[in-house]
């Protein structure tokens, strides 16, 4: 039996107590620090080795995964379960990466993420071509020193994509990488403060991206949201799974033509799911010839 908390992995919560729209999965603390600071994220005690930071008001949550695809995948799952993240949330893997060419410090959106080890490829994210350049990324198991292919090299994105794409739609999964090392500038020069600077120097672009990502998450949240009066009625009257789907579909149609009306008090006159469904069907069908359905 899954724990109560893990059940959230398989079902959408009826009432989202906290709405997190943006979830960050970041490998290193140095990469996370600028994000934690700018969004005033507060540490949440998890009693695990994962560090989670969040700001409920701004709708941001962040987990520091550690290095590697497996840790990234595990952290993504843990954050989803621990904070009961909705399927409308955007997931962002931000970090540093090697690249085959200069300049150091340039930020890219990875729109093709591959792992030669796993022989699989992901194509994550809505592309923000007006804000950021796109490129391909190879997730590797050891730090890359040869940069043979014209791609970014990291160690987490593949694991992140594998898991995050099961939680939200593919268009809300983002991989943003900042070039930290190239054939001309080796990994050895990277210190915590250099990494922090690399992220800090790109905060303006990151903010522009977030503004667009927020809009997409809200579109998805609105599409997936279940009105409170629907869940309230389902709490008062027993609906089988089939009847619940039918009821929710009918409700959308009913609400379109009855935007001023509510279902409040309906449970007093309609005692069963069938009665509710029949009521909605009849109400929708009445006067259909005089309504405008454009």
């Amino acid at each position, binding site marked *: 039996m899954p724990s109560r908390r893990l059940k959230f992995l398989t079902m959408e919560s009826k009432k989202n107590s906290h709405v997190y729209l943006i979830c960050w999965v970041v490998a290193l603390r140095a990469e996370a620090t600028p994000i934690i600071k700018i969004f005033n994220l507060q540490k949440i005690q998890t009693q695990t080795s994962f560090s989670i930071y969040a700001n409920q008001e701004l709708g941001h949550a962040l987990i520091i995964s550690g290095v590697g695809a497996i840790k990234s995948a595990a952290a993504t799952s843990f954050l989803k379960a621990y904070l009961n993240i909705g399927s409308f949330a955007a997931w962002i893997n931000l970090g540093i990466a090697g690249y085959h060419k200069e300049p150091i410090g340039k930020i890219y959106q990875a729109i093709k993420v591959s792992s030669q080890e796993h022989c699989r490829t*992901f194509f994550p994210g809505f592309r923000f071509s007006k804000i950021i350049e796109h490129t391909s990324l190879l997730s590797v198991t050891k730090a890359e020193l040869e940069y043979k292919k014209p791609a970014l090299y990291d160690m987490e994105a593949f694991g992140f994509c594998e898991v995050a794409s099961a939680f939200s*739609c*593919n*268009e809300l999964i983002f991989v943003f990488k900042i070039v930290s090392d190239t054939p001309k500038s080796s990994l050895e020069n990277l210190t915590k403060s250099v990494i922090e600077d690399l992220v800090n120097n790109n905060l303006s672009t990151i903010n522009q991206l977030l503004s667009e990502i927020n809009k997409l998450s809200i579109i998805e949240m609105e*599409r997936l949201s279940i009105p409170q009066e629907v869940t309230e009625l389902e709490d008062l009257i027993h609906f089988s799974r089939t009847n619940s789907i039918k009821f929710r579909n009918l409700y959308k149609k009913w609400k379109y033509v009855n935007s001023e009306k509510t279902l409040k008090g309906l449970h007093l006159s309609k005692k069963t799911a069938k009665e509710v469904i029949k009521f909605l069907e009849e109400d929708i069908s009445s006067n259909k010839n005089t309504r*405008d*359905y*454009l």
Partner: protein
Amino acid sequence: MIDTVYFEEDVLEYPAVSRVKKALPKANWVPIERFQELFNIRNQNFRIQKKNPALILAKKYENFVLPVPSGFGMSSSKNFYFSHMYNCLYDCNYCFLQGLYSSANFVLFVNYEDFFEHISQTIEKNKNDTQMFFSGYDCDSLAFDKVSGFSDNLIQFFEQHPNVEVELRTKSIVTSSLLRRNPIKNCIIAFSLSPHIIANKLDNKAPSIARRIDAMKKLADSGWQIGLRLDPLIYTKDWKNQYAELIFDIMSQVKVPSVHSVSYGLLRFPKKMYKKISTLHNDSGLFAFPMHENNEVISYGKEIENDMYSFIQRELHKYLPETKIFHCTN
């Protein structure tokens, strides 16, 4: 403008790819193995993707020419369709492609020669029958033509096969390549049309009805055969006046001899497709209508169907002979 072109690595030699490169000089080109790895990803969001679709250049290996679904054709005894492209530049609320595909990205199959080879074989195989070929079932035939250049190739091919007909179905006004050349008698440029109030509301990103009629008139005046496609017919409060006005507008600008055919059909979806599309459009009136289900097909139901069909037939008969009017049932 398309910002990203994903391409199968073995398509680069095709002439169509050079054309795409010229048409999209600023696009980012990303190699892929096969188009399905991107096009068929699970958990895609069609609505979000539609805000900025990418182009995928691929090679088609099979199913170049297929028989049309029953009830789709017109007077020919054998009817076939082919799809050199999946998905459409436009974003019509009722479009079945959003239920058919999980991706809004455009797939362009660049091995045009292989399509023509298979069409040739089909023509030869059915040489004792009258034949019609339909383009524009899984895409708009002309809307992407400035990039793909497909229609030029297509018309050159069918010019060599005057005994079979081909229909290019479109909502596009990209007709310059057609107007530059001599028309061919066996090619029908078929426009999908709705009353302008309905089109303004539902045919997102598509040219207005006035511009479509204008494009149609120019093609007709230069000798092209025109098809009128009133499909899907959309039910709304004032539909009779709206459709009567639309048919009047068209027929007052396009002369009867230029009209090859008119076909009409009610808004209808396979049940599964309707479910999928309606979840994409929570706030759409079109999907708020109390539809009927019959044999796994969702439509307005018999009463509205009969009413709309008899009205449309009457209106069309005011201008056109019976032989040019066809009723699409599928």
